[in-house]
């Protein structure tokens, strides 16, 4: 008998565990062999599933919806496309301006149309050369015309070609915000700055258009397109990011997210006739697959029962599942730490929720944010405990306090230029409030040491769970192989029947060791 001893009296139990293990392994291998999904992370090509969801209110008459579709471009190939739209006729129009067109004789009320594209990341792919658009004559009323001329003349003087002119122009709008001309134009064309820049470039005889791109980030939902500037120099063209866009829409995005151009020509992204209040939102999801798997998937019918997997869900739900399927891994870590190691945490699965927040915020930001919020919360909770409040009201007060703290930290860090600080909002606030309440009671009853032990234990668990859950191998396996869930379940059952000593008990009872 030693530390690894299990109680061997329950044959049905071990049968169940064995059964689960076998199912898990068989499902995993089946998916690996039949669908060529690689077990090893990295031997793959990256495929993005991007889903566009068009919503609008139809008036009752005929409806025509025309949406721009992405086409092959530098770094990306469109593998396949599909649309979902009950009752609508759907046509994909190719050519210079690839578009999807939905049409119906009569529709009334809220309508939802889906378009999904599988986009393969390939470094070899380069976009077709697009001819420059025609330059339309433009004019502005005074005093804007002279302001435009002034700014343009300055930018023209300090540039050599079309691209450098664009850079100089954008730089002026970014840096000289207080200059009189810029301020005048900024205020008057506040909503149409990209269009203004295109017109200004046209005025300087530079072919340019506003195009729309999508920042690809795994698991994002309800995203908007980002306007960009495309400028031609002969038949050659370049994409320019617009000043101001980066700091607003994509402030939370990592710096190196790939940019997919959704619309490359300057045509409208969405055009709805017969409806109003239209909007378009994007969800996206990254997955790693071998190229053969894609071909196989294209060939096979979609009704294969054993291919029963979350990959048949819409991208938006898949993105959600990508996170959900990681939770068992975090919970497994908690099981190991509590049952095998014997670490004490405050709240059993609180560390998993904190780890999920860490995934959104990145580890260091998350740790600093967590400690700041909990420390400040404990301080304020100390005052609340003197007010003689009833429990539920006190916790509500703590919740409001936590929200206030988070708001203040967000604003403060933003003002200081630390956009990382905004990520603090990813923390589950109710959980944080309960943590603060529990820690505070613990402090009063057991003293600061116990708070450190349990708080430290919780944080350690959260960090380990974070590491496990953010590991690309783990993410790859949990998302692509549903069988892993059965294996995790079997492991948890085994851990649940472990009757040996916990690691920390070897320390607790060390007096008996001699």
């Amino acid at each position, binding site marked *: 008998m030693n*530390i690894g001893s299990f109680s061997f009296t329950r044959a049905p139990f071990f049968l169940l565990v064995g059964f689960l293990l076998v199912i898990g392994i068989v499902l995993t291998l089946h998916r690996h062999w039949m669908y060529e999904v690689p077990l090893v992370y990295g031997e793959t090509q990256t495929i993005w599933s991007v889903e566009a969801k068009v919503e609008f209110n139809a008036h009752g008459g005929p409806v025509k919806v025309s949406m721009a579709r992405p086409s092959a471009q530098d770094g990306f190939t469109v593998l396949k496309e599909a649309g979902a739209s009950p009752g609508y006729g759907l046509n994909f129009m190719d050519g210079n301006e690839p578009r999807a067109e939905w049409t119906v004789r009569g529709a009334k009320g809220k309508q939802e149309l889906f378009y999904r594209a599988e986009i393969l990341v390939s470094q070899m792919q380069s976009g077709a050369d697009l001819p420059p658009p025609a330059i339309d004559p433009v004019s502005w009323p005074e005093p804007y015309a002279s302001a435009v001329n002034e700014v343009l003349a300055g930018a023209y003087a300090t540039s050599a070609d079309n691209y450098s002119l664009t850079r100089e122009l954008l730089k002026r709008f970014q840096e000289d915000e207080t200059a009189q001309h810029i301020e005048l134009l900024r205020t008057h064309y506040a909503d149409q700055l990209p269009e203004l820049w295109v017109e200004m470039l046209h005025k300087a005889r530079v072919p340019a258009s506003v195009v729309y791109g999508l920042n690809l980030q795994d698991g994002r939902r309800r995203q908007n397109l980002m306007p960009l500037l495309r400028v031609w120099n002969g038949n050659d063209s370049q994409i320019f990011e617009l000043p101001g866009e980066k700091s607003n829409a994509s402030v939370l995005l990592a710096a190196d997210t790939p940019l997919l151009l959704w619309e490359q020509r300057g045509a409208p992204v969405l055009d709805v006739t017969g409806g109003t209040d239209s909007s378009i939102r994007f969800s996206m999801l990254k997955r790693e697959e071998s190229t053969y798997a894609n071909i196989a998937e294209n060939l096979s019918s979609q009704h294969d029962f054993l291919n029963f997997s979350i990959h048949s869900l819409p991208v938006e739900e898949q993105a959600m599942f990508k996170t959900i399927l990681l939770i068992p891994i975090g919970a497994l870590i908690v099981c190991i730490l509590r049952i095998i190691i*014997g670490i004490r945490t405050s709240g059993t699965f609180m560390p998993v929720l904190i780890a999920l927040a860490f995934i959104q915020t990145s580890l260091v930001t998350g740790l600093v944010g967590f400690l700041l919020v909990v420390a400040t919360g404990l301080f304020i909770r100390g005052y609340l405990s003197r007010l003689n409040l009833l429990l539920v009201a006190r916790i509500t007060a703590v919740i409001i306090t936590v929200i206030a703290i988070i708001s203040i930290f967000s604003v403060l860090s933003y003002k200081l230029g630390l956009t990382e600080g905004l990520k603090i909002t990813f923390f589950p606030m109710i959980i944080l409030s309960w943590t603060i309440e529990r820690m505070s009671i613990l402090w009063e009853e057991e003293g600061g040491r116990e708070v450190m032990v349990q708080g430290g234990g919780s944080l350690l668990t959260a960090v380990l769970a974070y590491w496990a859950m953010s590991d690309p191998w783990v993410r790859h396996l949990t998302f692509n192989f549903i069988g892993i869930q059965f294996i995790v379940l079997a492991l948890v059952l085994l851990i649940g029947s472990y009757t040996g000593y916990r690691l920390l008990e*070897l320390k607790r009872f060390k007096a008996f060791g001699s």
Partner: protein
Amino acid sequence: MFTLPWRLERRGILGMNRRNISYISRYNPRRLYPLVDNKLKTKLLAQKAGITTPALIGTIQSQHDVSLLAELLRDVPGFAIKPAKGSGGKGILVLSRYDDTQYVKNSGTLVTLTELQRHVSNILSGLYSLGGSPDIAIIEELIEFDPQLGGYSFEGVPDIRVIVCRGYPVMAMMRLSTRSSDGKANLHQGAVGVGLDIATGRPLKAVQNGLSVERHPDTGRELSELVIPRWGQLLELAARCYEESGLGYLGTDMVLDRRYGPMLLELNARPGLTIQVANGCGLLPRLEIIDALSDADVARPAAERVELSRQWFCAESELRTETTL
């Protein structure tokens, strides 16, 4: 820093996982937990079975009744307020009367009636109960602990924990509060744990914060001289809690009152493991003897079970003066 698992195994140390699987979930049916997790239910059960418990002065069940507290305490010289569902001694306040609106703690701190009402209100809203569920406050008469135990405790009442497995007392320990435990009898807060021989009630070993001690750190009394009066009666009371509660793995907390003798304070369905450290020996060998007993053995009357336990579980004292005798 760490010892090796097989060394603990050889000494028969019961670990947390084993306790949970092999004893608590095996012998304690979940539906019986409310009986022991609620001190009021335990008390009523004990009273019905003729097991002595501290007399009940009254209960406060709703926030509205908090204002009746002064009325309830009008003629009471001393009392203890407890949350019915509290655990680990949380939320227990022991007070003596000072004047109409003030009470005094053992430590000499004055507590006003308003503070007391706030404390009761906290109890009712579930501050001390498991999972924060609404609770009720119990007010009990003070225990006047046996003078033979004088000098063995700082401020608090020393209590005796007996682990009862299938009705047989298997291990016992006395918990003495100290200055550093703030008058509380919780070992992890710095109280002294004294292992007691099941056969005789004599002290075997004493520990504070995991280290062996010979004397009470505050009063300086030699712990080896500790004698528990009416030991047999106390064990029998503990053993009877098995029939009354139906729990096969039970921690009984007893006190010795000057007037009424051994009394039951509370029952615990998940008794801790530190008792092994205080006794200097593991629970497993003793529990295995009990595991092997037939149902007929378990059905014996409490007095017989105690007699058997006292024969089986006698131990040598590690305390110094005992060995010089």
